[in-house]
């Protein structure tokens, strides 16, 4: 059958171009011979006949190619053929190919890296069965203006028992325990939790079992290990179940091991134990120490659960009026994890999309310039029957080919970028540990490359499709078509506008970062070593031995060579929900629940304020007269003095924790110190109180050591002093305090760095874009410029002509970009710090940078324009 042979031929043809062209060559040779002999018979001399025949069959090489083109039949053959042709044509222009590939690799690489983060952090489902239905149930605490505060056990029990929209509510509380086994004692993060936590999250142990509610309520000493801890400390032994281990001085029985995927509440949680009932913790409605997570009934929305729990809350308030000010606030669990990072990731996704668009515009411009040069080639192909659609297809294949090469290089860049990102990322970025270039990211990059290729290939393909075959062949291939010109200029304006948007974003982030660094923390954090200490176990049950330990510690450390002073404080920096309490002031009625305010509870050794450089505003610091047996004293911060003592010195006034009628002792206010930003840069300073360590409650403290040189240099001495005082006390996270502060800004630093990097890439690409278009325009207009110079135009005129055109494009791009930046500013607001999205300084600076960059980009082509030699230019064609 004929058609089978056709298919076979076509297929062979794709593999075997040589054979097909040889056949065509043979066929044409036959034709030429026949024609020549006929012409000879008609009376021409043999040589002339041969010559004439060759002329008519002519352009043999071209016909071969064209014949080969046309003989390609179905999709596969044409495709393979086009790819080959495309590769050949890219190899023929290595400079162009290199620039285009690099440009695309940058754009695609940036997108790959950021998309990996976005998909890993924002989109990947939670590793729990019930992931979709999980929600955090917070206390909306109006007393300290914290919307995400914790609960007391009795309130939790009411929510658990009276709600109708949850399948289950569980509690947990992250806590560090000292783990003693073989080797050094180790502080390990773990969680107290209710027995139903595992069921609520939808997770089961890989080994053994989890504890029962009966065990929880009976305060059983049982522990469930994380997979990581089990592997690390027990070598993955299966017989660890039922073993008894030592944790924080208690005998705990191991009953089970959770799977590796079970990372709750955080990735580093090492174990789970039942909720504690120390000091009646489960009974007090005012001991607020538990976080609540729940699984919603199927089909129930967060809003419905919110309404349901508000109803329960109303019942609680009706029964217990002292709970006024304690509301309820439900947040979807996934939203809880990613809500804070989403704005940054969305902005970064937008930024890399801009970079890619600019890269596309640049490559499209390169292709347009190249297409003009190749117009003759395509006109010829069209003339001998290759069909317009066929040529457009050929061009698009070439573009996609370029994009695929760029995509592969981009994948490499993206992989490098992602690894750099993971290395740079702040510890707080959720799920950072699981980021990788997975199948989804690969598919994204592949799709992106294809779309990119079509996108930047479209312009030159359209331009070529518009070309008249005859026109180009005749006029010597100068090939300046109006459409191409407009496209090129439009693309440059668009990329300048995109780059301006990115530059404005980066500028705003830089300004925010600078503003944050100017903020006075109220503490001198340089040359300070900080480390956490925990005094636990029966030996430190009472305050006296703790106070004694701390006193001896700061004395001995303070006496070390190279140390200016040492002190301890409960914790220097506070979480959003610090250990806090309500209070009352002598001579003032109890605060009503509505106006009640809570203060964090902290105690410090006498030297703390001096060591940390906190100024005394009124009264005195603590000293050695503040002992465990002396009258209780307290120091308050400036905000508290201003808020509750209205300009009158509070020194000598008395206050107590709890209500006026509570058993707590009266404390005399002996000093007022300057505010310190202990809750970080982003939140307002709250009223705070400090107790002397001798009268305080802190069993876990931070030791701060001010040194004369490198703070880490004194760590070995500090460690040995602690060991000598009590070898069972572990040092936790010893670090320079500056590093702690830097970490508070780490995610902002990362976001700022990334946005600046992308903006700079965008700006450079856009500048290259202007340069390319202007250089091409000057080259195209060599003859015109030559004529102008010959007719007496001054160098200034010509210079002005070129600069004016380039600057016109830049001005349009700048205008559109600034307008777009203003319109998009809202998306940035959550990332900014004390800088409005419309910050005039940033806008003006970016406008300046853009103009300078545009002038530089136009300068080289302009210089070339004025060097045009009129004579050569006129002869040149």
């Amino acid at each position, binding site marked *: 059958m004929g058609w089978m042979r056709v298919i076979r031929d076509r297929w062979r043809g794709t593999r075997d171009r040589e054979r097909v062209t040889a056949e065509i060559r043979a*066929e044409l040779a036959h034709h030429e011979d*026949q024609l020549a002999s006929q012409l000879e018979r008609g009376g021409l001399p043999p040589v002339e006949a041969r010559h004439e025949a060759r002329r008519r069959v002519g352009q043999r090489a071209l016909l071969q190619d064209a014949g080969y083109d046309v003989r390609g039949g179905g999709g596969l053959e044409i495709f393979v053929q086009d790819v080959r042709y495309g590769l050949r044509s890219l190899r023929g222009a290595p400079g162009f190919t290199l620039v285009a590939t690099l440009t695309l690799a940058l754009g695609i690489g940036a997108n790959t890296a950021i998309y990996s983060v976005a998909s890993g952090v924002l989109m990947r489902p939670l590793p729990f069965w019930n992931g979709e239905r999980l929600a955090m149930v917070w206390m909306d605490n109006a007393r300290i203006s914290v919307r995400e505060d914790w609960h007391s056990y009795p309130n939790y029990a009411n929510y658990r028992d009276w709600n109708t929209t949850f399948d289950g509510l569980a509690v947990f509380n992250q806590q560090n325990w000292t783990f003693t086994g073989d080797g050094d004692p180790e502080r390990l993060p773990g969680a107290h939790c209710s027995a139903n936590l595992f069921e609520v999250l939808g997770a089961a142990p890989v080994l053994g079992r989890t504890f029962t509610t009966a065990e929880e309520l009976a305060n059983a000493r049982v522990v469930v290990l994380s997979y990581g801890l089990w592997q690390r400390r027990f070598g993955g032994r299966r017989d660890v179940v039922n073993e008894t281990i030592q944790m924080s001085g208690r005998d705990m029985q191991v009953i089970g091991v959770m799977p590796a995927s079970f990372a709750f509440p955080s990735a580093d949680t090492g174990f789970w134990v039942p909720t504690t009932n120390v000091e009646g913790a489960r009974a007090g409605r005012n001991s607020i120490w538990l976080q609540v997570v729940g699984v919603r009934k199927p089909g129930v929305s967060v809003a419905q659960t919110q309404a349901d729990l508000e109803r329960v809350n109303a019942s609680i308030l009706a029964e217990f009026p002292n709970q006024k000010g304690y509301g309820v606030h439900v947040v979807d669990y996934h939203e809880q994890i990613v809500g804070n990072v989403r704005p940054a990731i969305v902005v970064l996704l937008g930024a890399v999309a801009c970079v890619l668009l600019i890269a596309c515009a640049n490559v499209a411009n390169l292709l347009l310039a190249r297409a003009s040069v190749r117009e003759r080639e395509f006109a010829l192909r069209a003339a001998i029957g290759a069909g317009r659609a066929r040529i457009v297809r050929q061009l698009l294949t070439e573009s996609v080919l370029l994009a695929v090469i760029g995509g592969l290089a981009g994948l490499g860049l993206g992989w490098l970028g992602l690894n750099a990102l993971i290395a740079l990322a702040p510890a707080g970025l959720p799920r950072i540990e699981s980021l990788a270039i997975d199948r989804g990211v690969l598919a994204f990059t592949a799709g992106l490359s294809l779309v990119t290729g079509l996108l930047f290939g479209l312009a030159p393909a359209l331009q070529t499709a518009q070309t008249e075959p005859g026109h180009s062949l005749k006029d010597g291939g100068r090939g300046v078509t109006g459409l191409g010109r407009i496209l090129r200029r439009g693309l440059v304006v668009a990329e300048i506008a995109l780059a301006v948007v990115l530059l404005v974003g980066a500028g705003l982030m830089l300004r925010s970062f600078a503003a944050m660094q100017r903020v006075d923390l109220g503490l001198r954090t340089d040359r300070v070593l900080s480390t956490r200490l925990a005094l636990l176990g029966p030996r430190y049950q009472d305050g006296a031995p703790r106070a004694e330990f701390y006193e001896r510690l700061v004395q001995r450390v303070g006496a070390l060579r190279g140390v200016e002073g040492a002190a301890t404080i409960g914790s220097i920096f506070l979480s959003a929900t610090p250990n806090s309490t309500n209070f009352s002031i002598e001579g003032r009625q109890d605060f009503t629940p509505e106006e009640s305010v809570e203060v964090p509870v902290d105690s410090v050794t006498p030297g703390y304020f001096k060591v940390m450089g906190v100024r005394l505003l009124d009264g005195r610091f603590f000293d050695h007269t503040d002992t465990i047996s002396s009258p209780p004293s307290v120091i308050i911060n400036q905000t508290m003095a201003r808020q509750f003592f209205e300009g009158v010195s509070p020194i000598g006034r008395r206050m107590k924790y709890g209500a006026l009628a509570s058993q707590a002792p009266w404390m005399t206010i002996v000093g007022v110190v300057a505010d310190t930003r202990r809750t970080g840069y982003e939140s307002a300073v709250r009223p705070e109180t400090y107790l002397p360590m001798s009268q305080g409650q802190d069993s876990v403290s931070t030791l701060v050591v001010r040194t004369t040189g490198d703070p880490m240099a004194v760590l070995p001495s500090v460690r040995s002093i602690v060991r000598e005082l009590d070898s069972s006390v572990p040092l936790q996270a010893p670090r320079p305090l500056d590093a702690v502060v830097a970490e508070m800004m780490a995610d902002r630093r990362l976001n700022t760095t990334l946005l600046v990097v992308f903006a700079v890439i965008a700006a450079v690409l856009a500048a290259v874009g202007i340069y390319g278009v202007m250089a091409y325009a000057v080259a195209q207009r060599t003859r015109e410029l030559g004529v102008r110079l010959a007719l007496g135009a001054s160098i200034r005129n010509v210079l002005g002509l070129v600069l004016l055109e380039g600057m016109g494009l830049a001005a349009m791009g700048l205008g559109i970009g600034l307008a777009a930046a203003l319109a998009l500013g809202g998306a940035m607001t959550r990332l900014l710090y004390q800088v409005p999205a419309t910050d005039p300084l940033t806008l003006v600076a970016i406008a300046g940078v853009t103009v300078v960059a545009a002038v530089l980009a136009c300068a080289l082509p302009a210089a070339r324009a004025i060097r045009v030699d009129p004579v050569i230019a006129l002869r040149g064609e």
Partner: protein
Amino acid sequence: MRTNADQLHGTLDMLVLKVLASGPMHGYGISVRLHALSAEVLSVEEGSLYPALYRMEQRGWIDSAWGLSDNNRRARFYELTRLGRKQLEAETASWRRLTGAVGLVLEA
């Protein structure tokens, strides 16, 4: 003036199909025969003929095979397929309709 490439191709295709309707023929033969049949009015350029042949072969209207020519030389012979015959009929009919209509207008 802008030329309609498809229309030109179409006409050449029809003529080549018509020539091949009388039997298999090689490229050179087709061009000679066309010239002769048109009373030496039409002469097809080689640059158009071969692309047209390849295109029609690819569409399945004609089929080709290597053979020996009258003077014992190797040549590629083209032959009409059933599809090609149908195509010729269709194109002939449409051409007749067109020229007839044009004639009517001119003679009116």
